[in-house]
C-alpha cells in the first residue's frame, strides 16, 4: 500500500533510498509517498506541483509494479489538487520505463529527458490551432512583469521584420504581477500592432517545469540542462506548429541567468531551423529599460519616473487601484 511519508524515520529511509538510486533528495515537495514491505521502505516518489521527482525503487524489489503504484498515487493526488498533466525529468536511458506508463517523451537532450503524462502539449497546441498563421512568423517569449517601453520596442522591431509575430507571455505565477494582469498590460500596450498575436506559454516555455531557475536569478549551474530542454522543446514542438522561423530577444546586459539563456539560444536554435535575432535594448535616462528597473522604482515609490519607462497603458494600470494593490503589497514583503 502506498502511504505518505511524514515521520522523521520515514524521511530518513526515503533519503537513503533516493540517494542509493543515484538521485538527490530535493525538497520542497507537495507530496512524498512510499511503499513499505516488512517495515522497510522499498519504493518512493514525490510530487512538486506538476513535476514528479525522486522516484526510486529498491534494487531488490525492481521489476514489479511498485513504481506504477507510486506514480498512480502521486498523479491521483496531483489531479485532486487541480493539475491535469504531469512531468518527469529523467536520464534518457530511463525514458522507456515511463513511456510504458503512458508518459510521452517531450524532449531529450543527451543528458536529460523530459516526459509528460496527460498529453497536455498536444492539447495546448490544438487549442491554439485557430491562431496559426501561414508564416514565416516570429516569436518573442517574455514575462512582462510589468510591460515596459523596452518590451514595446522589441515587439515593434520584431513585428516589422516578419509576417506575423507571436508574443508568448509567461504563464507561471512566480512574478510580482499575476498572469492575467501581465496579459492585460501586454494586450493594451500592443493593441495597435495588427500583426501581433498574444498567447500564453502554458507549461511549455520558461515555466517552473521547463526552466525553474529563471525565477531564481542566481545563475544556478543545474539550470543549464533545463535551459537546454526549454529551448529544444520550443524549437522542436512549438515553433513548427506556429510556423515560427525567428525568435527575437532583447540583449541582456543585466541578468546573468537571462544572458546565459540568450547564449544557449544562439547555440541551440539555429541548427533546428529557428534563427535567433538579438536586438539592442532601448535606453531611457542613462541605462537600458528593464522590468526590474520599473519594479525598483515602484519599490521606492518613485512613480513620477515611471512614464519614461512604461507605455501610457501600463502606467494607467500601475496607478489604478488594482495595480497599486499589487505593488504596494509587494513593497511591504
Amino acid at each position, binding site marked *: 500500500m502506498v502511504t505518505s511519508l511524514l515521520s522523521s524515520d520515514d524521511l530518513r529511509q526515503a533519503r537513503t533510498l533516493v540517494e542509493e538510486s543515484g538521485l538527490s533528495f530535493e525538497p520542497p515537495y507537495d507530496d512524498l509517498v512510499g511503499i513499505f514491505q516488512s517495515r522497510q521502505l522499498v519504493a518512493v516518489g514525490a510530487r512538486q506541483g506538476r513535476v514528479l521527482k525522486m522516484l526510486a525503487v529498491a534494487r531488490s524489489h525492481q521489476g514489479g509494479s511498485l513504481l506504477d503504484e507510486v506514480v498512480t498515487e502521486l498523479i491521483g493526488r496531483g489531479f485532486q489538487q487541480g493539475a491535469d498533466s504531469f512531468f518527469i525529468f529523467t536520464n534518457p536511458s530511463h525514458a522507456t520505463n515511463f513511456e510504458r506508463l503512458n508518459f510521452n517523451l517531450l524532449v531529450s537532450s543527451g543528458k536529460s529527458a523530459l516526459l509528460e503524462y*496527460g498529453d497536455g502539449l498536444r492539447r495546448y497546441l490544438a487549442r491554439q490551432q485557430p491562431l496559426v498563421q501561414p508564416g514565416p512568423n516570429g516569436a518573442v517569449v517574455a514575462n512582462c512583469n510589468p510591460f515596459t517601453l523596452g518590451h514595446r520596442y522589441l515587439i515593434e522591431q520584431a513585428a516589422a521584420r516578419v509576417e506575423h509575430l507571436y508574443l508568448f507571455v509567461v504563464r507561471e505565477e512566480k512574478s510580482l504581477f499575476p498572469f492575467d494582469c501581465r496579459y492585460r498590460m501586454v494586450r493594451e500596450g500592443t493593441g495597435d500592432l495588427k500583426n501581433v498575436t498574444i498567447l500564453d506559454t502554458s507549461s511549455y516555455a520558461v515555466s517552473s517545469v521547463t526552466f525553474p531557475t529563471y525565477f531564481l536569478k542566481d545563475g544556478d549551474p543545474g539550470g543549464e540542462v533545463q535551459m537546454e530542454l526549454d529551448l529544444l522543446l520550443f524549437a522542436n514542438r512549438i515553433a513548427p506548429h506556429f510556423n515560427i522561423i525567428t525568435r527575437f530577444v532583447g540583449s541582456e546586459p543585466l541578468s546573468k541567468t537571462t544572458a546565459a539563456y540568450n547564449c544557449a539560444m544562439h547555440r541551440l536554435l539555429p541548427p533546428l531551423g529557428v534563427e535567433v535575432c538579438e536586438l539592442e535594448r532601448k535606453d531611457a535616462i542613462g541605462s537600458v529599460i528593464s522590468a526590474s528597473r520599473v519594479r525598483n522604482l515602484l519599490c521606492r515609490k518613485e512613480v513620477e519616473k515611471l512614464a519614461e519607462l512604461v507605455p501610457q497603458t501600463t502606467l494607467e494600470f500601475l496607478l489604478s487601484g488594482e495595480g497599486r494593490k499589487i505593488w504596494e503589497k509587494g513593497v511591504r514583503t
Partner: protein
Amino acid sequence: MKIIKKVQAGTMQSSDLMVFLEPADTLTVTIESTVLKQFGALIRAKVDEVLARHAIEAGVVRITDRGALDYAIEARLETAISRATEA
C-alpha cells in the same frame, strides 16, 4: 447523466487503465494506450458503449490504458462516471 465534477479512477499498473473525467460543454474522448495500434478501435468502441449507456453527452474523457481487458475498461469507466455524476 451529467459529469459535474473532476474525477479519476483506476491505476497505472499493467493490465489496468486510468480514467479522468471533467465537466465540459461538448464530449471529447482521448485514449492513450501502450496497445493503441492493435486495440485502439476496440477500446474506443467499449468506451463509447459505456458512455452511451449512461447517456453521457458532454465532458472531457481521458483514458490512459496499459492493456486492460474490456471488462476492466467497463468497470473503471463505470466507477468514474458514478463518482463524476453524484452530487
